[in-house]
């Protein structure tokens, strides 16, 4: 089916009303798994911040509780007079984050002393029990979806064909970085493929960040740790695994922000259409100026 469409579209490419060439960019498998993954990630992020709020500090090593040093923490400091101050501490640096982190006005207008604010946690009120339920359910869904996507990616040749950087890609790396900085997007044939930075970003997300999320998450399980004590050791202990889980989640948030920015710059309508219907319109090459 896909092959037929592809073959047909080479000989007689479908066009938009304005005459731009349309290509079938994303298979239905990729589109479904993309949206499922995006939704799972959103739920996992918000419920994860809810879980973090139950112990709003990160440690390095095997152990770590309130009496142990923290490399990252968010806390409220009571004042003799006036409202408490919210602090974000990273290493030895301290930032006043009152209003956003540590101390903020709750949805009902009350001052609250939690780490991450109500509008970014699931549920919005404090509930570790409910947060954990959301987190584990969607963790299973994300893992199953991710596993299916990996099998598909290898079997259908998605990784080899669309994501593996070619030698030409690697040689054009510097040029691609410059293009991105100038917010220039490829046209013509170049727009039919992922560019090299895009490939590296997707490969990192698919093969490094999401697997790391799952493995560090599982490393926090006392049950799994008894069967596989080497698992938390990989990261330097259970508390290090928890810290890496948090840093990796932050990296994924950064990826999503850049990803959304690129969608915005490249054209929301076309990009959304391609991830919903599969069809992507190619901006024609600008005519070269004659010298």
């Amino acid at each position, binding site marked *: 089916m896909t092959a037929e469409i592809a073959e047909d579209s080479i000989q007689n490419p479908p066009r938009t009303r304005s005459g731009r060439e349309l290509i079938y960019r994303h298979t239905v498998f990729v589109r479904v798994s993309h949206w499922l993954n995006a939704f799972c990630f959103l739920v996992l992020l918000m419920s994860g911040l809810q879980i973090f709020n139950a112990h709003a500090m990160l440690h390095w090593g095997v152990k770590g509780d309130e009496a142990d040093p923290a490399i990252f923490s968010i806390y409220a400091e009571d004042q003799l007079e006036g409202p408490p101050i919210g602090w974000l501490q990273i290493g030895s640096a301290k930032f006043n984050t009152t209003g956003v982190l540590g101390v903020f006005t709750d949805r009902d207008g009350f001052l609250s002393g939690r780490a991450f604010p109500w509008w970014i946690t*699931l*549920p919005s009120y404090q509930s570790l029990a409910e947060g954990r339920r*959301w987190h*584990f359910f969607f963790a299973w869904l994300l893992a199953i979806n991710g596993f299916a996507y990996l099998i598909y990616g290898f079997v259908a040749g998605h990784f080899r064909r669309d994501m593996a950087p070619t030698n030409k890609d690697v040689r054009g790396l510097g040029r691609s970085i410059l293009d991105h900085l100038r917010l220039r997007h490829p046209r013509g044939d170049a727009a039919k493929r992922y560019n090299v930075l895009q490939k590296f970003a997707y490969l990192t997300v698919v093969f490094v960040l999401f697997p790391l999320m799952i493995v560090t998450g*599982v490393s926090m399980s006392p049950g799994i740790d008894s069967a596989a004590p080497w698992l938390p050791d990989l990261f330097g202990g259970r508390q290090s695994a928890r810290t890496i889980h948090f840093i990796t989640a932050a990296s994924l948030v950064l990826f999503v922000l850049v990803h959304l920015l690129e969608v915005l710059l490249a054209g929301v309508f076309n990009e959304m259409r391609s991830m919903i219907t599969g069809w992507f319109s190619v901006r024609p090459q600008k005519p070269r100026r004659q010298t």
Partner: protein
Amino acid sequence: MSDTFLNRRAALAAAGGLVLAGCDKLSQSNTVQKILAGAESLNLDGQRLVLTSGQPLAREYPASEISKDFKANGTVRPDSDAYRNLVLTGFSDWRLKLDGLVRKPASYSLAELRAMPSRTQITRHDCVEGWSAIGGWTGVPLSHLLQQSELMPNAKYIVFRCADDLLNSQDGSGLYYESIDMVDAFHPQTIMAYAMNGQALPVPHGAPLRLRVERQLGYKMAKYVMQIQVVDDFSKIGFGKGGFWEDRGYEWYAGI
């Protein structure tokens, strides 16, 4: 211009608030909670696949790794006259009751428990909140007590009844309790601990006796244990979910 901007911002905030309010509604819905809780059986069945074959031990650490200030969570001093009297008399009148679906119900003094075969283990304690501490525990293997009392064939769960009432309820509905199944009850590291780091178990950590189930989270490890009850079903105990925190939304299987 700035007015429009502010209006738009307010509208966005309102829309965001609606979405989040919807999330909270979902989170509080019984049906949604039931669906989400489906993942718990995946966690239990998935982990049991690897945890029952050979009953792997939780890692044990050298004494140098012991936390200097092991956090005491939940109740740190049960607030009842009966418990205060036990502390004043050095637990000399305290007795552990073991009954339910057993052929030989028993009752043990602290001295009798101390005279039994013991196991000492330095392990990592993981709280559901996210922190970890390392402590050394000495106690009687639960399997030893259960073998002494001879389980009946329909015995399925071990319930631990505690002296602490986290809610200070007058009717006992806030009394702490926990339950585990036979896989964990007969695990070699599942002990009834009367000592911590070589000293008599301190009050904040559950004196005179607490449970250690090393492959699960801290809330499973009931402190201030007064009675061990062998049952075939815990749906009639408390609010029926198998433990104080389980009755308040936490998973019965706390292996993750």
